[in-house]
């Protein structure tokens, strides 16, 4: 059977509706149920060349639940997926380039398809004016000691680049210590550029 040519990607442009973002930054409940596991805040700045903030970028994430189960039929543990966790979120950057999600610390998950286990991580994509394609990367969590041997993280061999894929826990100084804050900045271009994957 002939393989059909894929449709061309195009930029999201400046006018992605705010209504499509409202409510999507919070992943910690689904269908009236609260997500299991450690709730966290994932936040950071998105900047371009010259460390200039990118306003009005759209950030989307996809991750497994606290037990590492994806809400998707390809996951053999799909029936065990946390009924209070959907796993997808979307946020928009403000004038400082800042985005923020409230989500849960993902569990270690199966690699499958011939790959080893994955350490806790979430998939992240970025859409903005000037980008005709999305940029995709993976966010890992620095304090997890098993951040070694992950088949995707291991594609990035330079320790400096690996360091740019780690969300780092911020000190608890804001009185909300029960919800730890993890910081993950995204540099699309320039010094300390974030590693992005082939699309």
């Amino acid at each position, binding site marked *: *059977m002939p*393989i*059909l*040519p*894929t*449709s*061309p*990607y*195009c*930029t*999201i*442009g*400046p*006018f992605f*509706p705010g*209504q*499509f973002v409202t409510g999507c930054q919070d992943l910690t409940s*689904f*269908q009236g149920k609260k997500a299991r596991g450690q709730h966290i805040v994932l936040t950071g700045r998105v900047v371009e*060349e010259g460390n200039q903030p990118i306003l*009005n970028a759209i950030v989307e994430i*996809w991750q*497994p639940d606290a037990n590492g189960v994806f*809400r*998707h*039929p*390809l*996951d*053999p543990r*799909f*029936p065990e997926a946390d009924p209070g966790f*959907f*796993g997808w979120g979307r946020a928009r950057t403000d004038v400082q380039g800042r985005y923020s999600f409230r989500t849960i610390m993902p569990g270690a*998950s*199966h*690699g*499958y*398809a*011939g*790959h080893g286990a994955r350490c806790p991580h979430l*998939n992240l*994509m970025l*859409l*903005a*004016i*000037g980008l*005709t*394609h*999305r940029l995709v990367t*993976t966010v890992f969590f620095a304090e997890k000691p098993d951040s070694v041997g992950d*088949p995707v993280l291991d*594609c990035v061999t330079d320790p400096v680049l690996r360091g740019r894929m780690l969300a780092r826990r911020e000190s608890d100084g804001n009185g909300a210590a029960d919800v730890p804050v993890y910081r993950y900045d995204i540099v*699309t*271009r320039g010094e300390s*550029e974030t*590693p*992005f*994957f*082939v*699309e």
Partner: protein
Amino acid sequence: MDAIKQDKLETSEVEYSPYQENTQLARYIKGYPRSFTRNPLQPLIERPLTLSEITGPVALDQRLAISAEDMARLTPDGPRAIGQYIEVTGRVVDEDGAPLAGSMIEIWQANSAGRYIHEMDRHEAPIDPNFTGLGRFVTDAEGCYKFRSLKPGAYPVTESEWWWRPPHIHFSIFGPSWMNRFITQIFFPGEPLNETDLLLNAVQDPEARDRLIFQTTPTLVGAVNFLAFRRDFVLRGKHHTPALP
């Protein structure tokens, strides 16, 4: 999980090849300044595709509200928005041509005067009180979608001295995996501004460029006649179908 699906996982039958450059927009576009300040300098890194990448948000209608099929009025009996009424249909398939059922489609567009309802839009054209320009739909078992709206107007790009965007509708589509999450803009056939649009013309191959343009189909005749357009989408990936819910 039944044995067939388990088999598919172990043999990794769901396949995603990188996008072919000649079917896609260039990343750097002369006259589109932000493409030169935002695209990464470093080469993109190859990675294996594990369960995490070949899954993705499905059944999004459990998470996001679906709209009424007719966007050209706010309520079923309400006044019509101003403009040329259109009906848009099409099908979402993978590279095998297999239907991608249950795919969420988000669309957003300007009104007939070329104005979006968005805080970033500083165009002086009027807002139409009967038109929001946004909709959410889900493909049926055959991968088909359908909505009614109105033809968007052209509008000037604020930061350019000459660039007017031709009429277009934005599509955001959630395929069955993170690998084929898809965003694009679809243009109308025969528009003079299509000739100079920096984004549409960033696709080198004319056949690939045509995949960003609606096809005209016979006008839909009824109480109100709708100009009819069609656009099918091919999302990246092969061998999806058996795994879908």
